[in-house]
């Protein structure tokens, strides 16, 4: 069984998106990046992100991630904060630690694109 199937597929994404987005918006380190974005559009992007890191079908490309974050002057600190919020979300949902590690590794694999390195 794939990671995506194991954690519950699209239903898991639905369950995670509100919790994850709420954590991100409440995190002083990164919440200001979301002040001016349309929340519905952002929730849709986060669903795509979660689908990707859960190992599901996605249309994310390195180029999209690079373009989307280029203007934001992000550092490792910001990236780590997102990963932490992601892990917190998964813990809240009762996802097994081994799966959380696997998901964090997928998220980590796009770090260079996001940080534009």
């Amino acid at each position, binding site marked *: 069984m794939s990671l995506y199937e194991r954690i519950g597929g699209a239903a898991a994404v639905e369950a995670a*998106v*509100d919790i994850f*987005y*709420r954590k991100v*918006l*409440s995190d002083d380190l990164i919440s200001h990046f979301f002040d001016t974005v349309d*929340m*519905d*559009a952002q*929730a849709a992007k986060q669903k795509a992100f979660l689908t990707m890191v859960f190992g599901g079908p996605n249309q994310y490309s390195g180029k999209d991630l690079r373009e989307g974050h280029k203007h934001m002057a992000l550092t490792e600190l910001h990236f780590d904060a997102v990963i932490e919020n992601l892990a917190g979300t998964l813990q809240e949902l009762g996802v097994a630690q081994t799966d959380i590690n696997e998901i964090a590794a997928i998220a980590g694999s796009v770090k260079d694109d996001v940080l534009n390195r």
Partner: protein
Amino acid sequence: MTDITFEESTYSLLEGETVLEGLIRNGVQVPNGCRAGACQACVMQAQEGELPRNSQAGLKNTQQAQGLFLSCQCKPSNPLTIGFTDQGKSRTLAKVKDKENLSAQVLRVRLEKVLDFRPGQYLNIWHGDPEKPLVRSYSIASIPKLEDFIELHIKIIPNGRFSRWAADAMEPGAELNIQGALGNCFYVADDPHRPLLFIGIGTGLAPLYGILRDALLQGHQGKISLVLGAREPDGFYLRRELADLQRDYPQLNVNFVCQSFSNYPNDIGNTDLYQFVKEQFPSTKGTKIYLCGGDTFVRKMKKQIFLSGASMADIHADAFLPCS
């Protein structure tokens, strides 16, 4: 840098320019309204070329499949061949049945019911010179099952080009060129026991009044709260109608919240709207939310409500954008 072809002429877009901006800069008349991807007045159709995904956001999948897109949102990276479409929401004429002031700032206009709509959706009014029309969006407050008209609440803006005309010169019998109905902010009776929370400022009451009565009419069982904010007490309107509704439906609770005035009638609370909502609705988990009013209010309240527990999927919002 990208070339767009429109009616056999080719135009080059400048860096960062949208299709709408590029066409207008080159003297092509393109109808438009909010320029924020909301009103859909600027919808066009691509005959050739690949559209950026965001330029089709908010359109129905059937429209997307036909290459319809919002020219105000479209910054293409590949050449496009485009034209106007007659497949968007078509326009139709509606006669004004009557008009009446609901307050010093709000004009109620009732039009013939010439199109299908859900209470809370909105329509565009195309006014003035057909070559260079003024487009304004107004939400619908009436209920098609109950009322034989389309009711709009028009905020009278001192130098508003449309609202001033509507208030001063428009007579019953006048024909308005309307397009609609548009928008996804309406009631769906999928779970009649959930609590509903409606929050609005100004003429945000128009769609809320429609959605609220629609929910009651469709037999919504759960608790319903309406919170209205205004700067001054005279910013509220339809107060008698709302009091009557509250009397007839014990599940409904209406709150008026006023921010900067000291001498209140006693049924108006004196507090900050955001603070009021925070105190009265500390957890919005499981509540369906409807937010209508100015763009800044909707953004701020949406975030607050989401952080207090409501799911994004349950937050319905209609933001009124300033007109250019």
